[in-house]
């Protein structure tokens, strides 16, 4: 199960992640990303990787979790 993790200190509200992944990431009124907590469906994984690569602040990492709960 893959989750998007955004480092709030590094994030500078470029907003590229929300452009690439609007299904999972929306922007608050100040331009900062809100990630919905749901695990990433497989068809969105490549967009998520692209968002992580394109973030100018390298604020996005993708976490793999074999979660029991």
């Amino acid at each position, binding site marked *: 199960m893959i989750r998007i*993790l955004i*480092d*709030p*200190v*590094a*994030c*500078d*509200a470029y907003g590229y992640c929300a452009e690439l992944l609007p299904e999972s990431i929306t922007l*608050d009124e*100040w*331009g*900062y990303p*809100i990630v919905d907590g749901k695990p990433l469906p497989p068809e969105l994984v490549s967009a998520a990787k692209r968002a992580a690569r394109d973030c100018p602040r390298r604020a996005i990492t993708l*976490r793999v979790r074999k979660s029991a709960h």
Partner: protein
Amino acid sequence: MANVSEALPITNRYRLLGYPTDLAGHVAALGPVPLPSAGARGWREAFVSTLEASGLSGRGGAGFSAAIKLAVAHSRGPGGTVLVNGMEGEPASDKDKLLLIRSPHLVLDGAQLLAAATGARRVTVCVPEGRHNVAAAVARGLQERVAAGSAPVPEVMVRPPDRFIAGEESALVRWVESGESLPSFRPDKGTALQIGRRGALVHNAETLAHVAMIARTGPDAFRSHGLVEDPGTSLVTVSGAVEHPGVVEIDRGAPLIDIANRAVPAGAPQALLVGGYGGAWVGPAHFTTPYASLSLRAIGATAGVGIVIVLGQSACGLMESARIAHYLAGQSAGQCGPCVYGLPAIADDLTRLARGQADPGLLSRLDRRLREVDGRGACRHPDGAVNLVRSALHVFAPDVSAHVAGARCSHWNRPSQLRFPDAPRAV
């Protein structure tokens, strides 16, 4: 101050306050600190199991198990630092100042014990800039220990900036390491802090005092107070609309109103603020709630830092909460957008509500902002502010309805019953 001046035999009762301040008197009253002698085997295991058996949890706000935290720090190997967190950023808290002034040796003993248990090579006492009384008392204590040769691990005092966020443990470690008082983003809970390549174990001053007492008396004396699931005693600062504000030592599980009554409230409290400015309001219906982690969590509060503030009848809970929200917004480290922009926006909305100047969309906007800011910072600072505001909207709900309709309390612009170090923006 509610403390006892004569030393009671420690086998009868467990308590932190009331012992002599000077080193000789401290040792005479309590005995020497039970550090391991050279080559003592099995000391560490015995010490850890004593801590575990006592059930001691942190008294600095997070309430984490001391034994678990010790294990995590130990896993980083020897050569690290034990940091005494005497920062006490909550303006309404005095317990750590009191401990460091009256019983510095108890706190330092605790630090030495943890240093022995983790192989740390340094004890660093953190006292904010500007707190001259505390710093002088700590300096005196450090000197006494050096003179008596009773500091196996070198002890130093450092003076980080006097800011709310400076006592957050990752910010404290970062300041020691690089001079910047900024919290770190730590998505993996339970990873140990580091200074350079070595481990850093940060503990609240009161927690260390408990460690030093428990090591001397054994776990049972600690457990003879409090509850099974939340044992021991706690220091709580009671302030607000009371006649005798000060620090009291209470058993965990004591009803909130009993704690408040020790300071003699000026009248029936309108509400109690539990846990400080990052804590939560509690209404009269829940005044008898036990001061214990689980019970408080069940009503949307936390034990947090030992603080109980009494709100008098002639105060506006929403206005006081607005002042707190502005204070917290100003104390942001400035690293994360949702905190930097969200907290002032929430404070502004709450102020408008308190002044009876709410626009029609205010409540839903405030609700949305609270939801969006919660949990989106690197540290728990915005979470505390959100919880405080949410509890205010809940506990002062009748006021909310009245204020939305355009009314405001007759005493809305009276001086605050709360303390703020820098004067907040005038509300």
